Structure formats: structure tokens, C-alpha cells
């Protein structure tokens, strides 16, 4: 006790649940919806009132309010700061989501993307006023083609799945130019869901190829399925089981023998960048997730960017716009008939020229790492994943022989008979301060747990992670289920009812009166 009567010791720790009056718990605040806050007439942006004539509105002036709440700036800031504190983030802890590549996002990249000379450029400004932006795109293209050993790259796709679509439409155009229509695309059953969805969207039928027992695609089955009606195969390499497809070159040769193309899902390029060139493997098209391999931030689910590198056979069919360098200046080709000789663009993927904001970040990443750093990053990612695999395979169960690439895959056979599921195990990781690994994917492994530590973790961090998972696995096997049942216990929310959310979807806030009216 000090002389004002203020206790200075730490007191007794209360172990029982203590309900607070406010409903908040220390730093953990509950937060209402923005629509439940504020008051009419308030605004957080001062905009002067103007004299308005309706002469040019064509009689189409809005009748009635939009229905937005009114809040001052401090209220809005507090609202979104409080929301942010309910999120896990790579900046706060290891984020081992396999296939998603949650690596460090350097803030230099954010700063560079916000330079007015990049961030404050209009896509349709006269091209002589954006030569620096076009130079940046051209530099990034050089990095992407050099690292992949491919001659060309289409820059406009806005995410991985959009890149897949771009790749398949390029293949479609190449086939058309040969006077062929081929309906079928071969996709391994271990593929990301986007692969079959993209193939269907591009007008192809999907033919699934099963995996072999060793986690590799069954090359013999795949070869047997090849024929003159096959347009392409879509293969992820390194694959979703975390393995490098060791028969990839042989597969590519067979694919080309029947006149088909080899599309590679490049989601896992970050395992091999700087060490292996996809172009040397016979790949015809591959998207690169700039938001995975080159660390443009995931931002809670985007924006991404998915440039597609193309082989000589496909390069001519890349979509608009094209970037050319002639007469000492860069020029964007925005219409097919302005294209250089030989180019036959299949169409357009989106308005304007692609995800420039992501291009700046990705180039900042590349220049920072250099070719040596990109290679080292891939090696460290692979090393950490193998270290995790080696350190846990005695207590958890690894379905395939290593070595793995940048992801360590486990199945749920180590949980057999324990009453603990992959879901329980993953959710219990939340209580330990970790984001769960990717679970139940790939589909070809029962109760899959796919762990990708990335190159951003120190050995101490990975060791701590291994220790926690080991202890959890041992507890589960010893029949101690307490920490698994109903986990997580220490998150902003307990498990959420996804079934009722889907059965009776509530997808937006409504005014109480509107809800009542609708019910009557």
C-alpha cells in the first residue's frame, strides 16, 4: 500500500469467470454494428454545402435517403480500431496456413505503393505522363519472366483464379488458331477448387485424375487419359500435398505429344523461386500469386494479383492490354488492331491494366530480396517445413514420405480413437495463440492439416510452435480432451453456428422497423 491508499501489489488472481458490467473484458471490447451507432445529421467529413440546380439531373434525383448512419471521425476510428483487435494477423503471430503463404509483409512496399507518382495516377492519363509506371510494369515483367524462365507474361489478371482463367482462355485461343476445339481438361483431385471451377468457367469439361498412394499425381493414369480431345492439364507444382511432382517433365512431354498444353497452378511457386525455373519443366502457362510468393499483403482476402507467364506457344494470344517499347518510349496497346505483328490477343480480362498497386509492392519485394534473397527465401521456407515435419512426425501422422517442399502435411490418423477431430485440434491452436493450419485440404488426405511456416519465422518461433503442437498431440493421444472440446475458449468468439447461418441467411443489417414490417 502506498501513502495514498493505492494498492501496489498484484493482489490475488481471480480464477473463476467474472462477468463484467459492460460486457467488455479489459482490452477486449464488444462492438456494435456501425448501423447501430451514431445519430442523424452527424458526419465525419466536412464538405461545404453548395447551391444545387437540378437542371442537369434529367429528372432522376434520388427520392429518399440511403439509410446510412451519421458518426463523427473519432467514433468511426474507434469502431474500426476495435474491430481490428478481433483479428489474428501475421504481424501478431505465426500464421501456418498451408497453400496461403502468410509471410511477412514489409512496410516499405506499402510506402512505395503510396508514392503519388504511383498511387495517384489515372489509368487513362496520356501515356507520355505515365512512362515511369510503364517502366515499373516492364521491370516487374522482367523479374517474373526471368525467375520462371518463360518468354512472356500477361499482367492484367487480378488474382490467382483470374490468372487461371486468363491461362485457360489463352490456351483456348491457341487451339482455335490451330482450328481445333478440345473439350476436356485433366485436373488432379488434389487441386485447389479454383482449378476445376476455372476450367468449367472457360467452357471445358473437367476430368479428374486420382493421386497415387505417395501423394504424387498418378502419372500413368494421367497419361492414359491424354488424347486428341484434351486441351490441357492443370497441375499444381509443388503440389497441394506439399510435394514436388517428380515426374513433371515426363508428364509435360506426354501432354505436348498429344498437342495439349500444360497449365501449372503457381500458388506454390514460393517453394522453388530462384532455384527452379518452371519454363525448364515444359510448362506453357502459370499464374503467380503476387500476394503469396511476392508478399503483397492478403488484406483479409484481397486484393491480390495473378500475372500469368506464358510459353512461346501461347505468348501471342495474351490478352489486352499489351506493353510494348518502341521509339524510345513505352506504349500500352489497348486495342487488338494496334498490336505488334503476330500478336492475337484473345480479349480482355478486366478494365484498365491490372493491379498496379500490387505491382509496386511486388517489385519492392523483389528489389529488396534480389535474386539471392528470393532463392534464400524459398530455401528457408522449405527448410522450416521439413524441420516441422521431422519434429512432429513421431507424434502426429504424416501420410507421405518426405522431403516436403514448403508445406508439411499431416492427416488425422494420429487422432484415431481419441474423440478429437482435426477441427478440434485446429481450434485448440487458437487458444495457444496460433492461427490454425489449413485443415481438410487437400481433399485426398483424411482430416488433412497442412502447415506452411514460411521463411519469415525464426528458429525460436518454429521451435515454440513445434513444442505446442507436440504437447497437444500427446495430450490428445493420452485421452485428455478438455482443451479440445468446444475450443477455442480464449478467442473473441466461441465456435460459431455455421449451419444456421446458411439455413436462414442474414446477410445485411436492417432497421428494426423494416424487419418487423417484413415479418407482418
Amino acid at each position, binding site marked *: 500500500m502506498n501513502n495514498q491508499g493505492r494498492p501496489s501489489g498484484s493482489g490475488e488472481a481471480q480464477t473463476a469467470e467474472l462477468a463484467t458490467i459492460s460486457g467488455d473484458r479489459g482490452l477486449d471490447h464488444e462492438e456494435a454494428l456501425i448501423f447501430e451507432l451514431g445519430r442523424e445529421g452527424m458526419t465525419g467529413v466536412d464538405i461545404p454545402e453548395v447551391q444545387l440546380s437540378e437542371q442537369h439531373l434529367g429528372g432522376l434525383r434520388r427520392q429518399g435517403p440511403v439509410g446510412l448512419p451519421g458518426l463523427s471521425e473519432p467514433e468511426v476510428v474507434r469502431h474500426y480500431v476495435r474491430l481490428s483487435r478481433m483479428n489474428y494477423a501475421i504481424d501478431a503471430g505465426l500464421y501456418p496456413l498451408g497453400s496461403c503463404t502468410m509471410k511477412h509483409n514489409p512496410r516499405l512496399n506499402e510506402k512505395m505503393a503510396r508514392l503519388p507518382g504511383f498511387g495517384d495516377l489515372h489509368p487513362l492519363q496520356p501515356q507520355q505522363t505515365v512512362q515511369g509506371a510503364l517502366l515499373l510494369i516492364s521491370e516487374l515483367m522482367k523479374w517474373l519472366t526471368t525467375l520462371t524462365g518463360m518468354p512472356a507474361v500477361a499482367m492484367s489478371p487480378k488474382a490467382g483464379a483470374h490468372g487461371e482463367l486468363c491461362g485457360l482462355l489463352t490456351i483456348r485461343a491457341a487451339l482455335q488458331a490451330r482450328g481445333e476445339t478440345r473439350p476436356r481438361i485433366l485436373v488432379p483431385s488434389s487441386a485447389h477448387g479454383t482449378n476445376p471451377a476455372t476450367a468449367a468457367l472457360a467452357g471445358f469439361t473437367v476430368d479428374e485424375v486420382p493421386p497415387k498412394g505417395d501423394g504424387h499425381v498418378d502419372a500413368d493414369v494421367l497419361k492414359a487419359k491424354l488424347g486428341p480431345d484434351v486441351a490441357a492439364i492443370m497441375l499444381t507444382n509443388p503440389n497441394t500435398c506439399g510435394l514436388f511432382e517428380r515426374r513433371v517433365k515426363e508428364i509435360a512431354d506426354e501432354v505436348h505429344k498429344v498437342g495439349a498444353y500444360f497449365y501449372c497452378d503457381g500458388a506454390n511457386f514460393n517453394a522453388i523461386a530462384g532455384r527452379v525455373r518452371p519454363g525448364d519443366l515444359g510448362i506453357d502457362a502459370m499464374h503467380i500469386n503476387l500476394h503469396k510468393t511476392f508478399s503483397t499483403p492478403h488484406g483479409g482476402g484481397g486484393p491480390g494479383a495473378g500475372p500469368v507467364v506464358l510459353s512461346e506457344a501461347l505468348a501471342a494470344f495474351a490478352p489486352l492490354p499489351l506493353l510494348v517499347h518502341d521509339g524510345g518510349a513505352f506504349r500500352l496497346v489497348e486495342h487488338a488492331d494496334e498490336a505488334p505483328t503476330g500478336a492475337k490477343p484473345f480479349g480482355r480480362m478486366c478494365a484498365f491494366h491490372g493491379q498496379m498497386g500490387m505491382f509496386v509492392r511486388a517489385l519492392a519485394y523483389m528489389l529488396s530480396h*534480389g535474386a539471392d534473397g528470393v532463392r534464400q527465401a524459398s530455401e528457408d521456407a522449405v527448410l522450416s517445413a521439413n524441420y516441422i515435419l521431422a519434429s512432429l512426425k513421431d507424434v502426429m501422422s504424416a501420410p507421405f514420405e518426405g522431403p516436403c517442399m514448403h508445406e508439411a502435411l499431416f492427416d488425422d490418423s494420429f487422432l484415431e480413437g481419441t474423440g478429437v477431430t482435426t477441427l478440434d485440434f485446429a481450434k485448440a491452436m487458437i487458444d495457444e495463440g496460433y492461427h490454425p493450419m489449413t485443415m481438410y485440404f487437400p481433399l485426398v488426405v483424411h482430416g488433412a492439416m497442412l502447415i506452411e511456416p514460411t521463411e519469415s519465422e525464426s528458429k525460436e518461433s518454429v521451435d515454440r510452435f513445434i513444442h505446442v503442437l507436440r504437447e497437444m498431440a500427446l495430450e490428445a493421444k493420452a485421452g485428455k480432451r478438455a482443451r479440445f472440446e468446444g475450443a477455442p475458449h480464449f478467442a473473441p468468439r*466461441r465456435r460459431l453456428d455455421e449451419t444456421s447461418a446458411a439455413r436462414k441467411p442474414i446477410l445485411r443489417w436492417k432497421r428494426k422497423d423494416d424487419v418487423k414490417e417484413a415479418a407482418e
Partner: protein
Amino acid sequence: MRYLPLTPDDREQMLARIGVRDMDSLFRDVPKLAVVGRSAFDLPDHQGEMAVERALAKMAGRNVAAGSVPFFCGAGAYRHHVPAAVDHLIQRSEFLTSYTPYQPEIAQGTLQYLYEFQTQVALLTGMDVANASMYDGSTATSEAVLMAQRITRRPKAVLSGSLHPHYAETTATLAALGGKVVHAPCTPGKSEDIAALIDNETACVVVQSPDVFGLVRDLRPIADAAHAKGALLIAVVTEIVSLGLIESPGAMGADIVAAEGQSIGNGLNFGGPYVGLFATREKNLRQMPGRLAGETQDAAGKRGYVLTLSTREQHIRREKATSNICTNSGLCCLAFTIHLSLLGEEGFARLARANHARAATLAERLAAIKGVSLVTPSFFNEFTLKLPRPAAVVVDELAERGILAGVPAQRLMPHDAQVRDLLIVAATETVTDEDCDALAKGLAEVLA
């Protein structure tokens, strides 16, 4: 290398635990012919932060930033003032460096703002439901057409001649694969007779308002004509701020709204990343593409949010999904949601009025210049002028004087001779009186 925490010692210890001699052993599945050394890459080695910053700043310095000159470009991307709080908040680690909210217990921040975003988009567009975003307005438009083809089981999409040509090309690239795309004639400043193109094969009519020339369109007669033939009306909005002053597409009978949300919260960024808005009527919900956040409860009875109706999506439905989209525009949605929350009802309406007033004054002033006439009788913050000379040349001449005067229509439609002299001019709240003076003076001089 500052981003890589492992030391050479760490690497040795880790290799020892794994039980291999070197890194090459871990890559043993890679065919030898594909393994290359450092020398295979004609690229520089790593660099410190200062060096990278210098290199990139030099490139940035070779561009004319919109904010550094009198600036009037629009045609699908608009320069608005974004409050400082927006950019600060979206750079919080918990938003910037989190993944798609597949683990809802530790992603309530993202899920709740997506739910708020969906609500805002539904309110603005006058629709029942909205998704958690598409890549941009153009891909939202093409997804809307595919959705209409699924709902109606009809092949044909009729695109307005005044739909942004990039949107039309993006849509045609995709929608023509399994269907048919018909382009209505382009009639700058006037409504084309699009009803005549709707038949019993028509899945949808796609009309933009304000259109690419800035013309505000009455969608009601088009909605009636479409519905009479069992087709859907897809309304496209590239300038979402217009909905603070103009009647919403939902109120005018649209079935699907596909819009660009860049104007709220997001910078120009030379064309991306932007944020596609997608909204529709409740009855079309299960055919909608893209992610959806929904309200539910947790095991303790507390309100919370999850991603829902994912049986429409690729990770569950694979080739039967409504779209292949996965990553969308998460952080751009957040910027949109925060900016719109800051504006509120009052601020948003004022912003819209400020834009229109600025454009109306400028249009009248420029149309008074000898040889110049206003092509679009009604507009929001963007209008089209007919010049006595090719607009592309005039824009280049004004650029040399340090004025970015707008977008020549021919940049978007090089084959349409009637648009050769048309200049599309946007004036938002960021345009000052001095900017308008400079443009009026400059235009008069280069046309003299």
C-alpha cells in the same frame, strides 16, 4: 537479408534434425535439368531499404501525379479526397496482414466489416443483398451477365452502346464462351433504342448510368421492356458517388447491380486494385457469385459473423460453383466501408451535391467556348464535350501545358469515327476554381 530471420547456424541445426546433409537433398524430387544456380538469373542481388526506395521513387518521379496538376480524367476511375483516417486504419496490422476469414473466432473484425460493407452496398444500390466484393466493376459486370444466363437459362446478353468499352470487352470475352453477346449502337449523349434488341432469347440487358459519356439514364423503361420479355436488367455504375444524388438502380427496376466502388475510399492506383460491387434481389441469392458474410451466434449465444452459403463457391462446389473467384478485394472493401461510414448519410449526400455542382458549372463554362458544345444534357460529375478538333490531339496539347483535361472518347473506341472529337471530362470535389480557370483558358487557347 533483413526479412529472413534464420542464421547459418540455425540452418545447419535444422538440416541435422531433418537428417539431411544440405538443401539439395530437400530438392531431390526436382529433375536435375530444372535446378539452376544463382548465375541463371540476370537479376541484381538484395538491396537495403534506402536503395530500393531511391530506385522506385525515381520511377514514380517520371509520372505526372493527378494531384499535381489541374486534373479532369474519369471514364471509370475517379479522383476523390480520401480522409486520412481511412488509409491509417486499413494499414493496421490486424486488417492488412490477415487472411480470408476462414477461422471466424479470430476474424470477427474482417467478418463484421464485410457484413457492414454488404449492407452499405445493398442500401446504396437499392437492392436486397450484396456480396463481399468482386475484383472490380468490369469483372462484376461479366459475372452479372453469367449469373443472368444461369437464372434465365437463356444465352443472349444485350450490352448498351454506352457501356464502358473495357467493361463490354471484359464481359464479351467471358459471356460469349457459352452464350451470345449483342452490342447496341453507340449514341453519345442519347439513349439508344435498346428495347428493340430484347427478344425471348435474351438473358439480360446491361445498361450503365451514368454511362461512359456521363449521361444519366432513366432505367425504368428499359427495366419494363426487359421484364416484359422475361429478361433481367443489369445496371452498371462506374461512379458510385452518383448514388448520393441520383435515383438508385434498385428503385428503377434493376435486377442485378454491378458497380465500381473505387471512388469511395480507394485511390486511382493507375487502374487497380479497385473494388467490384455486386448486389441483387433476394430471390437470386443462390445464383450469386462471390463470398458472403452472414450473421449467426456462437456457442455462448453471442452475435457473430461467418462466411456463409459457401456451397455456391469453388472450394466446396469445384466445377459446379457459381464462379471461380476466391481472393477478392478485402482491403479495398474496408477502405470503402470506413470512408462511407465517415461520410454518413449527410456527408455522402453533400459530397454528391458538391460533385454535381462543380461539374455543372464547368460544363456550362466550357460549352461557352467557341466551337465547343455539350453532348450530354444530363450528367452527374462527368460530361462529354464535342470539340472542333480531334480530342486526342487537344488532350496531348493540354498535357504539354500541364493540364490533364480528360479522356478522349477515341482512346476507348478507336473505330468509332463519330467519337473522334469527343472529350469526356470529370470534375469531382477535388477540382478547384483555379483548376477550372486553367482548363477553360487552356482549352480556349489550343482551340483558337
